[in-house]
């Protein structure tokens, strides 16, 4: 082989090393920049919760609280907004509605994925269609319905209307469809009932998806605002977001934002923890669902 080839090879190797470094730097720069953009509001929420009201209302926003770090806002948020009770109400509604809705979603997804019956696609198409209608229209009609049922100011009214989430049925159906049919037939042959099969085989396999659905559902309960205020805003059932909105308004209607932000931070923290621990499952859950569209 001629020397020229030799140099060419060295050149290639050198260039290759440079390319690899440049790519690494670009990757981290891009991810770093995007991470900054994504985290800035979260950082601002925390910073605002540590500012005094005057400093917050200042025309020129400050990055770091100049007028003292007001950790008292967090204490005030917890006591004034009686976050303890609000927290318990929301958690209770979140957990109970998630459990029941999981059972319903699993059964429905199982039926859609495994069993053949007339009108299956029509029903599924109809369900998908409901996702397209803006939900604001349903609020009033549903309000009249729940009043007729006499559910006002109960946990039922906070839980029952939102048990069906088509989106999660779709997610789980995709997941179930990836489990080979032979397993189901084999189970049928040895006489295992549908439910046993569902419990023994399908649920363990779809566990990641189930967990990600649980988390996403819980977050839904956390952020709901209009419906809970309408149907169950009494002391015994008030949800977090309702509690927060007016717990810190002063007589003149001005909202004490820093304390409100402190309350919001306190509330978001558990969600954040839940995500950190179950991150792996969420990732797996969501990925398995989408492959076969």
């Amino acid at each position, binding site marked *: 082989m001629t020397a020229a080839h030799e140099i060419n090879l060295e050149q290639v190797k050198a260039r290759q090393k440079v390319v690899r470094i440049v790519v690494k730097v670009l990757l*981290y720069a*891009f*991810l770093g920049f*995007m*991470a900054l*953009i*994504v985290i*800035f*509001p*979260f950082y*601002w*929420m925390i910073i*605002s919760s540590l500012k005094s009201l005057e400093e917050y209302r200042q*025309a*020129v*926003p400050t990055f770091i609280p100049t007028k003292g770090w007001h950790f008292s806002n967090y204490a005030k948020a917890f006591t004034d907004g009686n976050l303890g009770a609000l927290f318990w109400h929301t958690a209770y509604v979140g957990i109970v509605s998630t459990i029941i809705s999981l059972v*319903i979603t699993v*059964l*429905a997804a199982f*039926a*859609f994925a495994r*069993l*053949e*019956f*007339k009108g299956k696609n029509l*029903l599924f198409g109809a369900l998908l*269609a*409901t*996702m*397209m*209608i*803006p939900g*604001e*229209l*349903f609020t*009033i*009609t549903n309000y009249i*319905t729940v009043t007729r049922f006499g559910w006002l100011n109960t946990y039922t009214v906070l839980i029952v*209307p939102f*048990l*069906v989430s088509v989106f999660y*049925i779709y997610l789980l159906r995709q997941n179930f469809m990836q489990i080979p049919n032979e397993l189901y037939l084999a189970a049928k042959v040895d006489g295992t009932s549908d439910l046993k099969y569902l419990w023994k085989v399908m649920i363990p396999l779809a566990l990641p998806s189930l967990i990600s659905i649980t988390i996403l559902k819980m977050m839904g309960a956390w*952020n709901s605002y209009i419906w809970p205020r309408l149907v169950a805003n009494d002391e015994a059932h008030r949800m977090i977001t309702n509690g927060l909105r007016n717990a810190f308004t002063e007589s003149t209607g001005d909202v004490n934002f820093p304390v409100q932000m402190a309350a*919001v931070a306190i*509330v*978001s923290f558990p969600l*954040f923890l839940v*995500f*950190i621990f179950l991150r792996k499952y*969420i*990732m*797996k859950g*969501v*990925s*398995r*669902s*989408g*492959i*076969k*569209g």
Partner: protein
Amino acid sequence: MEGSKHSWKAWLYLLPVIILTLVFTVWPIINTIRIAFLKDYSMIGAMGGKTYEFGFANFSKVVTYKRFTTCLKNTVLLCVLTVPISTMLALLIAVCLNAIKPLQRLLQTIFFLPYVTNSIAIGMVFAAMFNMIGKPSSPDSVGIINNFLGIFGVAPINWINVGSEYWANLTVMVIYIVWNALPFKILVLLGGLQGVNKQYYEAAKVDGTSRVRTFWRITVPMLSPMLAYVLITGFIGGFKEYSSVVGVFGENMGPAGQKGALNTMVGFIYDSLSQNNQGRASAAALILFGIILVVTMINLYVSKKKVHY
């Protein structure tokens, strides 16, 4: 599977879903459709014994409304801009995240943060960043973004304050919506990426394929089912955009002095609802539902062609 023998069981499993959907979704839809055809129907009015004539008056009133086209234009523009941008950005971030080992977990958690950040906080932040308090010329505060751009010698831009142009408002809205849509999309696409068989990439590497070609010719096609799924749900959500505009511009739905400049279709529905005109709100909602249905049909048709299973 034997069809009929099993079907009663299937219906049994589906019973809870069907009952709940009938009561809390189907009946409201029917009621909405019914009301849509009653001219200026108001539930409070009905309580007071008023009667309403049947007909298409609501629909014609909605379509002939002076600002209907503005609302439609805003909705379509926001949708057409934010859904592709957020999907592509999410895909890029997901691919980069997938390509690095160190810090991957930390960055993944950071990118999920917006999902946990409360919407009130987001609105405040965007006001602080884009707001220009005080006279534009005064050094008081031209907002964080303008200060940041100032470093590069860019004159302060009037983003959302009085007298700001439409394109500036739109840019802020697009940034806000993309920022909100990113976490879920990254989650879904990153999950999808980890599902792709590694050997395709090894084969491409051996064939000397450049990173860009690998991205376009292998990663994107392999992820096409996920991308289609994200785009379709994105468009459905995009057409119902409203709370984000309220987040940035408040009930004014536009910069000071231009009330309703950024109003969307759902915003228009709310305007009618706030005046207790459920009839016209329902008509507008049905029109919006029709548009979303048509767009979704097109998306489904296009994705059937392009997506590889």
